[in-house]
């Protein structure tokens, strides 16, 4: 992870290299998804179903959980 200011201070080559670094954020996202699954004692798929049917409300946690799932799916 990098501060935006640090990224802006890099040369173009150094920034290119930093942007090539492998998916550090995906690991953090998967850990957070696992944390939500433990906290709510359900799988992400169960949460998705519960959310779609209105059994689970749109809260800060469910919103972030869904966003993480969409993002992890986006990158495969």
């Amino acid at each position: 992870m990098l501060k935006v200011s640090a990224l802006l201070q890099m040369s173009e080559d150094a920034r290119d290299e930093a942007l090539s670094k492998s998916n550090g954020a995906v690991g953090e996202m998967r850990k957070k998804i696992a944390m939500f699954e433990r906290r709510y004692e359900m799988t992400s798929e169960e949460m998705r179903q519960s959310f779609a049917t209105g059994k689970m409300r749109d809260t800060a946690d469910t919103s972030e959980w869904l966003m993480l799932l969409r993002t992890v799916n986006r990158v495969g």
Partner: protein
Amino acid sequence: MSGKHGPVPLEKYLNIHQSAMASHLKLGFVIDDGVQFDVVRSHAVYQLAGRIQCAGQLTLDVRKVLEVTGREGRVQFVQTVEYTYHAQLGKVREVFRYCGPHEEGHNDEHHVHRFDVLGSGKQLADSPTFLIHEEERPTLGEVIEELHRWHDTHGDDAARLLASFD
């Protein structure tokens, strides 16, 4: 023609972010900018995430996902494809939360949740509000400005509320 949230060169995007944060830090409302940049998939998907600590024990938790939509030479054009901006008062109240569309059949438009911060703490009856038009959807800088205005208007009452939880 590119709209308010259309694709922009990554460097321009980062400069806009940095300039907005510098301005809010200078004003003294933002105390610490904990937002950091990370790679989700190299040269394709990036993330900006972290906590912005503000005056009056207000915090803004940010998570944005940027996708590379095109390139011109070495210049990558990026666009926000996911976001959530969650403003809270200490650990006791939510102030508001902006979210992109949930694609799971519930609140599937851009929307904002607002809360009765100084009263029940519950979500307001007319919340969430849907942000149908692109112009209604704020940038991170505009979200910080909104929180700053909230602090200017309600800061004293908010301080009393926080003290009541001590």
